[in-house]
Structures are given as C-alpha cells and as structure tokens.
C-alpha cells in the first residue's frame, strides 16, 4: 500500500522548506538550491500563483530547522501526514532572490571557482525565497474522505516544514467539494476575502492568476469564475490605471 502511494507521489518532490513567517498566514519558503536535494525542484513548481502544501504542526517542533526533513516522499494528499494535523494549502505570491554577496565589492582572496575547489563545505549563500499565503487546510475526515477548509487554518506549519507543489487533481479536490456528507459539491474560493484583506500589492495579481488557472481546471464553471475574474481584472487593470 505504502509503495503504491510512494510511486504515485514519486514525481512530486518538495520545493523547499519554511524558514520564516510574517504572520499566521504568510510564510517564507527557501527553495532548495542546486545540490541540496537529489533532484532540483522544477521552476514551474514555485512559479508566481502556484499552489503548494505544507504539513501542519502536530508534535514537537523539529530541533534543527535546516536539518533535512524525514524523507522526501510525502504522504498522498488527503491523508494526514505522520504525526501531523493535515496540510496547509498555500499560494506563492512573491519571489525574492537573496544574494549576501551583492554590494560586497571588497577584494576577495579567492574567487568562486577556488572556493568551490578548496572549501567543499562552504554553503551557497545565495538563495531563492518564495512568499506563501495560506489559503486553507486539507485533512483526512473520519471516513477517509478529504476534508477541506478555506480561510485561515487553526494550526500553523512548523519551521523547516517541507513545501511541495500541488498537482492538478489536488487543486481540483481543494476547490470542488461539498460542505456536508450528502450535500451537492460546488466550487469554493473561500480564501478570497482574507487574501484580498492582506496588504500586499501582488496578492490580487496572484488571485487573478489563480482564477485563470481554475478556469482551465473547471471549464464548466466558466460563467461563475468569470464574475470573480472580471471583478479583479476591473479593479486591478482599469480602476488602478484610470
């Protein structure tokens, strides 16, 4: 059983780890650099407007935030990861390239090639950081059915928690569900209010990108999504330019 899951998830590797948080819903993830993992994450996995998932805190926090997480293979979506309360679902809305060497124009004794050659344990100080806004949470219900909640999750991810991209069927599952066991499922974007409430100029743009993504995932919901899209597009493109 475990094997099949792992096989299914084999292609999805974590893109990085949570290294900082700005609030309960805004986190910074440091993307794995070259050489940090067996396979470097795909650029499209941490693109602007991409969905990610992060295991929510359950037990004790990990002692060393930079220590590698226990295994790259994550449990499948909908199943609660071991010793965790479920998944936080997030949205990448910003990218920051960190370069401590920038501005340090002073003389160096050795150049980069020499450092690589002579100091193999030298940590690459340049990093790609992505900002993540939590949109909600996914957990396994009592009957094994995935349980979705949009909005602010009660629990927060830990420092060092692995961030991995969401696949299309997972995005669909996160957005299209029923509120009660026998109720009719419908499209949810319950995170819109708190996403808009964040004071960040890029977030509305990211939401617009999300809406476009959902339009391709839910072609039958085009009319409903077009209302949200038009609304955002008008405010972002027309009102701000007018």
């Amino acid at each position: 059983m475990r094997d099949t899951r792992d096989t299914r998830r084999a292609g999805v590797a974590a893109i990085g780890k949570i290294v900082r948080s700005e609030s309960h819903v805004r986190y910074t993830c440091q993307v794995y650099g070259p050489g940090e993992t067996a396979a470097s994450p795909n650029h499209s996995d941490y693109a602007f407007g991409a969905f990610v998932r992060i295991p929510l805190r359950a037990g004790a926090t990990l002692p060393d935030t930079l220590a590698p997480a226990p295994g790259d293979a994550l449990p499948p979506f909908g199943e609660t990861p071991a010793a965790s309360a479920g998944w936080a679902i997030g949205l990448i809305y910003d990218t920051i390239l960190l370069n401590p060497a920038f501005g340090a124009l002073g003389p160096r004794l050795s150049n980069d090639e020499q450092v690589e050659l002579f100091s193999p344990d030298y940590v690459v100080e340049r990093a790609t950081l992505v900002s993540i806004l939590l949109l909600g949470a996914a957990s396994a219900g009592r009957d094994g059915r995935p349980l979705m909640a949009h909005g602010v999750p009660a629990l927060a991810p830990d420092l060092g928690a692995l961030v991995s991209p969401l696949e299309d069927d997972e995005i669909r599952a996160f957005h299209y569900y029923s509120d009660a066991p026998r109720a009719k499922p419908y499209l949810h974007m319950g995170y819109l209010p708190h996403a808009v409430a964040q004071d960040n100029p890029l977030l509305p743009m990211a939401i617009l990108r999300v809406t476009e993504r959902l339009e391709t995932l839910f072609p039958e919901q085009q009319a409903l999504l077009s209302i949200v899209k038009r609304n955002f597009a008008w405010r972002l493109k027309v009102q701000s330019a007018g």
Partner: protein
Amino acid sequence: MQAAGGAQPAPVGITKGPGDTIHEYTFISRDESRLLKNGEYVYYELEGGANARRVLGRILRRDPVQLFPDTFLSEPAVAPSQVAALVGYDQRASDLFELSVAIMGYYDHTLDSFVNPWIPPSSGTPIYLADDAWLTEVLSRKQPHTPGSALIGSLLTRPDGATPIVLDVKDLVSTHLAIIASTGAGKSYLASVIIEELMRPYNGAAVLVIDPHGEYSALLEMANHDEFADGEPAATRNGAHGAARRPRYQATTRVYQHDQVKVRLSTLTLSDLRYLLPSMTDKQHHFLGRAYDNLRHAKKGQPWTAEELKRAVADVARSSNDESGDDSGNSTVAALHWKIDERFGDNNMVFDPHHHLGLREALKPGQCTVLQLNEVDERDQQVIVATLLRRIYNARVDTERGKTHEGDEQYLNYPVFVLIEEAHHFAPHGDEVVTTRILKQILAEGRKFGVGVGLISQRPGKLDADVLSQCLTQCIMRIVNEVDQKSVGAAVEGVGRELLDNLPALSKGQAIIAGAAVNTPMICRVRQRITPHGGESKDAPAEWRAYHSADATADRQRGDALLYRNQKGFSIFKSDD
C-alpha cells in the same frame, strides 16, 4: 409574556430604533419566509406579564440593508448566491431588511379604537407578526355575518379569506360612504358587494340605487340565492299557542326603467324650474318666480299641471301689463310658454302633473330599488335625483319629528341608504347644480334622520370637495390620474399619505378601506359577488367573430335574399312580364 389569546409565536424581527417620525419605528428582519410585505401588520408588547398589550403597527417600507455587490449580478446565468458561496458565504439566506412601521396603537375594547402609546419600542424589543384571528378581531368592529355587518373582502396581505374585513353598517349608513376608483377598477363590483351585504337577512336594509348606466340590474338575481333569504315559511312552522313566528325574509330587487320614474311637477322647486328652463332673461325669471309663488299659494300643496303654470305666468303678465299700462309682458309670456311646453309638454317622459314614485313603494326594508336613468337627459337625471332626495329627506325629517303619520304620502318610518353612481354629475366641482344643495344637506344632517348616502365616482377631481370630505367611510380603488389622486388625498383625511401612495399599484378588485366603518385604514381584496356582475365592458372581438360564424352568416344570407326579392318585387325598374 402572554397576551390576549394563544401561545406566543416566534418573533419575526428585532426593533432597531425610532423611525423617521415620532409614530414610526424600524426593525430588522431576515424575513426568510417573505411574510413581511408592505402594508403587513406586526406588533410588539408594551408591558410584560399579564398586562401585556399588543401594539399594532403597519409596515410602511421595506429597505434591504444587505445587498449583493453589483459585480455579483454581472452574469445572468449565475445566481449571486452562487458567487457568495464561492467566496465562502454559504449561508442559506443573505437577505436582511430594515422595516419601517407606523405605530397604530393597542386596541382598547372600551373605546373601540386604537390608542397610541406615544412612545416607540426600545431597541431590541421583539416584533411579532399579527395572527389572522387577532387581526380579524381588532381591524373590524363587527364579526362577519352578524347583524350590522358588511363583509366586503379580506386583508390583501393575507391569503384570501384569512382575515375578513367587515364594515360597520351603522356607521356606514349614518356617516356616508364614498367609493372612488378609475374606470375598470371594480367600483360597481364593490358597490354591488356592499349592496348584497346590506340586503342579507342580518341587515335587511332599504336601499335605493341611482344607476345612470344600467349596471345594477343583475341584483335582480338576489331572489334566486338562499343567501338573501332567512327563516321558514310561516305555514310550515307551527308555534305552540300562537308563539311569535319567525317571518320569512326574502330580499327583493325592483328595477325602475327610465319611463317608470316620474317626477310630479308640483314637487319641483323654483330653482329646479329655473335649472330646467335655461337661458331665461331677467324678466322671464321674475315672471316665473311670481307665477310659481302664486300657483303654490293657490294650490295649497295640491298637484298642479304645466297648463296651470302657464296660466299663472299669463296672469302675472296681465297684472304687470295693467301696472305698466302697455303689453310689454306678452312677449315674455310667449317665450315662457314656449319653454314650459318644450320641457313639460306631452312629449316629455319624466315630468307628470299627478303621478310620481311612491316613497314607500320604492323604499322598503329588504328591498333594493334600482333607478335606471340611462337614456335620460343629464339635466333631467339631476332633477329626478334632486326631487327624490328632497322627498326622502323631508319625509324622514317630518316622520322623525312626528309631523306626518302612517297613511300620509310623506310618511317614511325607517332609515334609507341611497347609493349614487356617477356622483360627480350630481355634485360637480366648481359648479352648483340642483342636486348639490340637497346632497350637502343630507351629508351634513342625514345621520340625525336616518338618511345615508353612498357616492360612487370615477373622477374624484370633478366631484365637489366638500361633498367628498363628508363621506366618512372611503373605499378607494386604483386611481392612475394624478389630479384625482391629489383630490382624494386632500378630501380624505383618515387615510395616510403613505397608504394613498399605493393607489396606482392596486389591482382590479383591491381597495383601500378607511374611515368610520372600520377601525383603521387597510387594503382589502374585495370578495366574490354572489350575484353575477353586470358592469363589464362589451367583448367587441367576440361579437365580431360571432358575426362571421356559420349560423350567423347563413341567417344573414337568408335575410338578404328575402330583402332582395322584396326590392325586386317593388322595383320601378321591374319589367312587366
């Protein structure tokens, strides 16, 4: 928490605070069942405990306080609630309303009216929807089908028949009635419903209907309906030892056609004569006046003829000639004679030297008399109505004062109710016609002598404002014309502006009922008539289609063929062979 009757229902909303005026308050409700319509009745409790008094109020406005953003409404195929659910608002109901209520007061059974508490409810007071049974009890003074009641319909905001609206016939008759509506709004229908109620066994009224358009002959059908009969025939009911037998009641209708309605010449007053003989010179007026006085003096109340009036005029002229020493009066006499002949000569259908409608024949308790005045000239109509009203009023005054006794022509020992259609003809605005004065007199003093008047008009703007304002019970139906709306607003004191604003929105058969015969103004759905309705418009397309039906066409062809043969038979072009 318990007030009069029944367990306390669940509240429909919570008081927000005072409204725009001191007699209004506002409350907030989700109103998921959409019960709180404009004009609906709600109440709050004034004091808790056993003394709780329900303060009734009427909803004036319903303002939504929580609307979907316009952008949610941009896709016609998508419900805004779907968009709200998408963004996480998955509540069943999204509506929230602020309702403004006019405080009517609590009902005081000793005063038989609503008493204003003079203080709005405090914020947070629960508001309840008034239940049908309690509303029926407090809105109308009488219960349906009881003596002195006229069930005319039910409250518009409630299901048909749930909350009956009942007029108090005593007040209706003593303080007069006005039915105002545009053409086609159902005024003659409502009038017929009121007449039906007056003729039911529990009222058994004496009603006279002045019907210039011949719309009320369907009331003859009352004889065929059990609703207008009561008791058992005396023969089948044997009371022991001659105990009082209950007489059988059967409402009757008498329709007088225009040629059966005669006005006796001697009942005309001088102003009637002057009104009927128009374009007179000053001299003619003078001669006629003197001749009329002399004639009345000579006849001492006995009937006189047109010839006698002419002779009286000639006598006046003669004495005038004697005084002046010339014959200048002769031309005046000739002109007056010509006018009298023209109006009162043998060709006239209305005036008669001896006969006229007997009051006790035309007016009887349990009888509805319809005077069909179609085909009668408008001035003649006015004089007929004026003389009749004057006779009725004088008879009632004299009978009440004991001046006449049984057997006298002027004896009328029961109150009567006169319903006048096209009332603006009989009391026009800005003009005084022969009926105006007697109408005003009856409206002002009729209650003392038991003469009630109901005026029906489609043009309240053309009706004398004083006359309209004296009708203390008003039934106002749909009025579209603004001038008419304003004149109703000005003349009708008892109805608030906010209720009259509903006038253009009323449908056929819906009426605002206000005034003396009900406890509070309300909007009524008029009940179904028992007798068939006769005042409907002609169905021209149906009649045109009938003209082209196979039978009608065949009939016509047969007729044409006969006509053609006849023409051929008598044609001057006919050849001899």
